[in-house]
């Protein structure tokens, strides 16, 4: 099964810069318009890829409400006092700031979900491979061991259950049974790792001039997305320094006038943030056309078997 989204077909470099830009703006902004745009498009992308449920939405809204309502209890800045609680002022500004923070927190959680979906481990290894070759080897070795560990653990557990030695009658018994299997697993993995090491050494690991396999290609779409990211990053940086999108909550809510730079910043951020959803929708259009279908791995396999 492949849960690959259209956006994740982009080059790792494009993807990482895109996520770096959007996450930086999302986490760092105190501007409610940018935060709201970020939440809107991250939620849209989640709806298009993994889907959203009524339960998920209500849990998220409750979480956001909690963040918004908790802030005035800790922060007593602001000039509009609503009421006093234990002789401490509860202010409107603090409540609004809490509301803005709830947008920021929720949208960063959603973008992180998108990051997990798109930046798969092979892309991360590609990114690390150039500056950190040893680290990339270490990460890919570890990732390769994980499924092996899972399978062996399952087999050992089955064997011990069949022999009547796996006891899960109480939490304590379950932990000690799991630990017995885990210990056997450690022996197996450590002894096997030496074989792997010898084999890797025999094949010339860490020799000079070693190259890594890469299946990623830089396509026209990558150039387009990259250009968009650079444009919006420049606009965001400029308006941040020139205080065009300045929004302050304390002591009183105030914001700068809406100018051309402000509009450009909001517009370009919105355009950048909508890219994953846009690509997801166009992918579905492509999927219905025959040209796309004939290029999928399944189609190629069926051709070769015929």
């Amino acid at each position, binding site marked *: 099964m492949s849960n690959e989204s259209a956006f994740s077909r982009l080059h790792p470099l494009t993807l990482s810069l895109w996520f770096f830009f959007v996450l930086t703006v999302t986490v760092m902004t105190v501007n409610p318009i940018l935060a709201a745009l970020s939440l809107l498009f991250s939620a849209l992308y989640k709806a298009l890829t993994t889907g959203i449920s009524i339960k998920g939405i209500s849990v998220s809204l409750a979480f956001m409400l909690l963040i918004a309502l908790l802030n005035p209890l800790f922060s007593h800045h602001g000039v509009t006092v609503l009421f006093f609680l234990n002789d401490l002022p509860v202010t409107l500004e603090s409540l609004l700031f809490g509301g803005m923070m709830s947008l920021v927190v929720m949208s960063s959680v959603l973008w*992180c979900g998108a990051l997990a979906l798109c930046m798969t*481990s092979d892309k991360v290894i590609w990114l690390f491979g150039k500056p950190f070759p040893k680290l990339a080897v270490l990460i890919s070795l570890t990732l390769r061991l994980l499924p092996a560990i899972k399978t062996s653990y399952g087999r050992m557990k089955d064997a011990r259950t069949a022999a009547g030695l796996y006891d899960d009658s109480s939490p304590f018994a379950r932990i000690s049974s799991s630990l017995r299997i885990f210990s056997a697993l450690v022996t197996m993995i450590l002894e096997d790792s030496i074989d792997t090491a010898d084999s890797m050494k025999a094949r010339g690991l860490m020799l000079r001039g070693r190259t890594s396999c890469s299946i990623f290609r830089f396509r026209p779409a990558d150039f387009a997305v990259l250009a968009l990211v650079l444009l919006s990053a420049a606009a965001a940086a400029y308006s941040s320094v020139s205080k065009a999108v300045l929004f302050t909550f304390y002591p009183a809510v105030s914001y700068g006038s809406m100018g051309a730079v402000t509009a450009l910043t909001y517009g370009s951020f919105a355009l950048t943030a909508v890219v994953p959803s846009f690509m997801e929708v166009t992918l579905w259009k492509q999927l219905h056309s025959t040209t796309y279908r004939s290029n999928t791995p399944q189609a190629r396999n069926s051709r070769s078997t015929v």
Partner: protein
Amino acid sequence: MTKRKLAAELLLVLAAVPLCVSAGSLLFADRRYMLVAAVIALISCLLFFLSFEGRDTGTKKLVLISAMTALSVAGRFLFSPIPFFKPVTAIVIICGVNLGCEAGFLCGSLSAFISNFLFMQGPWTPFQMFIWGAIGFFAGLLSKPLKSSPVLLLSYGALSGILYSAFMDIWTTVWFDGTFLFSRYAAAAVAAIPVTIVYIFSNIVFLFALSGPIGKKLERVRTKYGF
């Protein structure tokens, strides 16, 4: 990698710290602490990875580190039904004590990095990488006393649980407010007391159960294959 190239890269990373801090305070006036904290956590990990690239690590040791990392990541999953009761810290400490500072740091930071692929990557990843890496690093530094006295080892495990929780609470505080509010930190720390107790308990249980067997197995592999 040559020595000179390594020195240049180290210098570049060192220069990046003040650069990021000043850029952060210029660009994101209200929320700079968040950026500064994340960047410092990330850069200390990168610094360590760079020095690791420059050093000559044997293939066998490299694979053993990856095996220990895979075991700690797998441990985070095998025990996932019981919340916060995880062997990760214990395995990172065992790795540090038996294979040295460098192995401890790598095992800790990569456990956080890799297991978050399967749980969830987020702004907390650099902080987890840093604190688990540091726990492994100091376990390696203190390997002599920790190896000789089981009581010290278990106390180190308990202390790591407290430090991990306290450090991640700093992250929570900075993330929510952008600045460090002590009242918020105190509230987060108090709210985390039950979790901290589970951390301490699980570290002690796993160190008690695993440090002897895994230590012996690592020792055996090292004498058997000679490195």
